[in-house]
């Protein structure tokens, strides 16, 4: 439904606010790093060899799997019932 929080000591509200700001900044930096790393990983995974620069490996896999599937479908049609 929502969040409820512990109320900090009334005399230390300013320092609590400062702490939260620091934590938020750290979390944003961690978030950005994680997103960047994931992007880099996906780029690296999708990259083919240097000779085939710019060709998506996952697209090649997709075509390969589609081709294999079509072959097996055709072979299955030849089965005796």
């Amino acid at each position, binding site marked *: *439904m*929502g*969040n*409820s*929080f512990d*109320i*900090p000591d*009334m005399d230390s*509200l*300013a320092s*609590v*606010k400062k702490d*939260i*700001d620091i*934590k*938020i900044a750290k*979390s*944003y930096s*961690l*978030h950005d790093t*994680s*997103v960047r*790393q*994931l992007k880099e*990983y*996906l780029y690296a*995974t999708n990259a*083919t*060899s240097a*000779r*085939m620069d710019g060709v998506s*490996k*996952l697209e*090649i*896999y997709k*075509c*390969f*799997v589609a081709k*294999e599937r079509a072959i097996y479908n055709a072979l299955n049609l030849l089965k005796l019932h």
Partner: protein
Amino acid sequence: MSSIELGKKKGHDLLFDTIEQEVREVETFVFQASDTIEEISKSIKKLEDYKEVVKFISEMMHNLDGAQPSKGVRDPENALGLVNQDAVESSLQFIAGTVKHEEMERMKRMLFRFTRGRALTHCKSYEQDGVTKVAYLVVFSA
């Protein structure tokens, strides 16, 4: 395809299994990374909510004429039934948090029924990622 086949050093008959295994590993990693990123986003939102609540409490302190919540509740000695000086000074309890704007009225009505009108509810709206939320502070006498 043949260059990938050569790169993996697998025969054509084993290539299908190798690709399946590789894609499965990549998928697992990507799902884990996405979950982690989602968790971080959630924790950022929660921290931003907490910041709004703290900001709201500090604003409200001026309007409440310096009323302080009872410290006795969070004191472990008080939980054992011992008398605490702070608890004697103030019997007020403060509860603060955030809810979605559309749920605020329902919460106010619920609080009114539970406390039989003996709770003061203060609230302030704010925007978070296009969603209107409300920071609330409930003051009641324990």
